């Protein structure tokens, strides 16, 4: 799939932008803080409906627009809302049709005292959709250097990565995730109440069921996804390291549905566990039983201790955990393998090629990997890359690409020929 047009309004430092986007490769160049990354961020938002950069999504709205709205509010002019808008036209090579996807980020006041709320509106082909239903129609894979946090950071980084990626591929994943999260919140409130004031522990029953119903879906999808991603990533990694390293992705679920033979915990790292044969119903049943066992402890602690919200995934190179012992170079290469695997996996699963978004990644790679990556990018349907330094690219690559200059939130398209 590929974008044909992108228009942004009040998105970060970009007041207004209208771009026809060609297929193949676009290189965005310019100094730092000019808006290159914002363009990639906006495109990724259409795939994930979340930003990779900030959890405070209100920062996505142009600060000038926000203060103008606040000004209007003070002057009692009425117009007291600030809106950022991302509109994209893309072609889906599976259904062979052009689509239009629009996201509005609306910052609106609530209550009389400076309260503000961010509302997301999504329109697919002009029809309003819930965010959970809109995800998966447009696919993108994003690669930024800070993403080494997926490997080096805390488990929440890896869960976030899994959620954003899997939601694009499995219809229903986003729904299950939000239902699961809501059930956890209710259940934790109840556990807290039971631990502080006591009461009938059977009240947990309905929440256990909801947790098991939605949680088992998440676990089931994660088992499949991690196994398939591992297969692709291992292949790519083998090539990138010229056969020197074997990369493994190990899923380590907080509730593990696979029976552990002999409880040999020490073998955990070396022996891969195959959970692919498990049915979702079996996972649900087992999860429910596990929750029943954990009940006394959970009441005592006042919080839900097992389930996919505590899942972990580890990256192993030649059986060494990269999160703990990986060198900077090893982590970068593993991340590159993961990202390229993600593209291939999405292709296989959805039948569509995701748009590739690469932010300043070349500077972090050595010459050989740079060449490997550029060769890959060259063969993909559409890729947008940002760089401060065109010399990182080979002259042939630059000559074939569309090179655009970004300055002060304005993009100048200077086509070759």
């Amino acid at each position, binding site marked *: 799939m590929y974008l044909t047009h992108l228009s942004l309004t009040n998105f970060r430092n970009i007041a207004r932008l209208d771009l026809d986007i060609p297929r193949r490769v676009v290189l965005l160049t310019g100094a730092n803080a000019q808006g290159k990354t914002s363009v990639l961020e906006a495109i990724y938002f259409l795939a994930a409906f979340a930003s990779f950069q900030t959890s405070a999504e209100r920062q996505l709205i142009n600060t000038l627009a926000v203060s103008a709205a606040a000004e209007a509010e003070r002057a009692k002019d009425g117009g007291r809302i600030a809106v950022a808008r991302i509109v994209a036209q893309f072609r889906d090579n599976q259904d062979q049709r052009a689509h239009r996807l629009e996201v509005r980020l609306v910052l609106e006041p609530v209550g009389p005292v400076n309260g503000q709320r961010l509302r997301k509106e999504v329109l697919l082909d002009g029809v309003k959709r819930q965010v*959970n239903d809109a995800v998966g129609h447009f696919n993108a894979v994003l690669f930024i250097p800070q993403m080494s946090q997926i490997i080096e950071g805390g488990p929440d980084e890896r869960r976030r990565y899994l959620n954003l990626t899997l939601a694009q591929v499995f*219809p229903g994943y986003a729904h299950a995730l939000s239902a699961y999260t809501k*059930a956890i919140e*209710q259940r934790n*409130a109840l556990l807290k109440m039971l631990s502080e004031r006591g*009461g009938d522990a059977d009240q947990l029953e*309905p*929440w256990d069921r*909801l947790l098991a119903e939605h949680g088992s879906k998440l676990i089931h999808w994660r088992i499949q996804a991690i196994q398939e991603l591992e297969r692709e990533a291992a292949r790519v990694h083998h090539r990138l390291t010229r056969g020197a390293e074997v990369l493994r992705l190990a899923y380590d679920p907080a509730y593990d549905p696979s029976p552990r033979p002999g409880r040999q915990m020490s073998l955990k790292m070396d022996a891969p566990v195959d959970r692919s044969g498990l049915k979702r119903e079996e996972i649900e049943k087992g999860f429910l039983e596990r929750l029943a066992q954990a009940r006394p402890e959970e009441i005592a602690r006042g919080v839900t201790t097992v389930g996919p919200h505590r899942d972990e995934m580890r990256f192993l190179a030649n059986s060494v955990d990269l999160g703990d012992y990986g060198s900077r170079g090893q982590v970068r290469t593993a991340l590159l393998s993961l990202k390229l695997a993600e593209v291939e996996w999405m292709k296989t699963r959805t039948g569509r090629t995701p748009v590739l978004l690469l932010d300043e990644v070349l500077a972090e790679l050595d010459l050989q990997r740079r060449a490997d990556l550029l060769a890959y990018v060259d063969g993909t349907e559409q890729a947008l890359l940002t760089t401060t330094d065109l010399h990182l690219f080979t002259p042939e690559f630059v000559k074939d690409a569309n090179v655009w200059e970004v300055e002060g939130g304005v993009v100048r398209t200077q086509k070759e020929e």
Partner: protein
Amino acid sequence: MLPEPIQNLIFALERLPGIGPKTASRLAFYLLRAPEEISGSLAEALTDLKTKIAFCQECFNITVAGRERCEICESGQRDGSVICVVEEPLDILSIERIGAYQGKYHVLQGVINPIEGIGPDDLKIRPLLERIRRGGVLEVILATDPTMEGDATAQYLHPRLKALGVHVTRLARGLPVGGDLEYADQNTLLRALSGRQEMG
């Protein structure tokens, strides 16, 4: 800066659901200018609401004060062997409007919601169980909303009702009549598919 009586009224109106500060002041100034009978009848209606309305001791629907049981519970025409369990009195109104249900009701007056501190004991669940223990009930229809809290409440009630030997059913969920498959959200469609029925 406004005289106290009008300021008080604005504050009181603002507390109502769906009314913001602007609407509240517009309503307050309207009442100030309007003939006295308008504000008078409104005041009277508001007072009557609390003094002349009570809850039915059987099903906890709203009823006229002084009566122990509501019209539906007293009616000899209604089938007492079926009880439809709803969240709020307004839900009864919706079901009554169809005119197809002949059984009786039970209003829970809310749903289980731990975040808001609402547990089973805060709802009219115990009276429901007692009502069924008294006998004569064959079927209980759980008609709580298809939200997470409504589902959890139904899940909580299910084994407890079952234990009393009654038939427990839940309202079907799925596509709205006159709806369009193409525009149905995934979740609704999924539920409609898993709850599909044999054609008669």
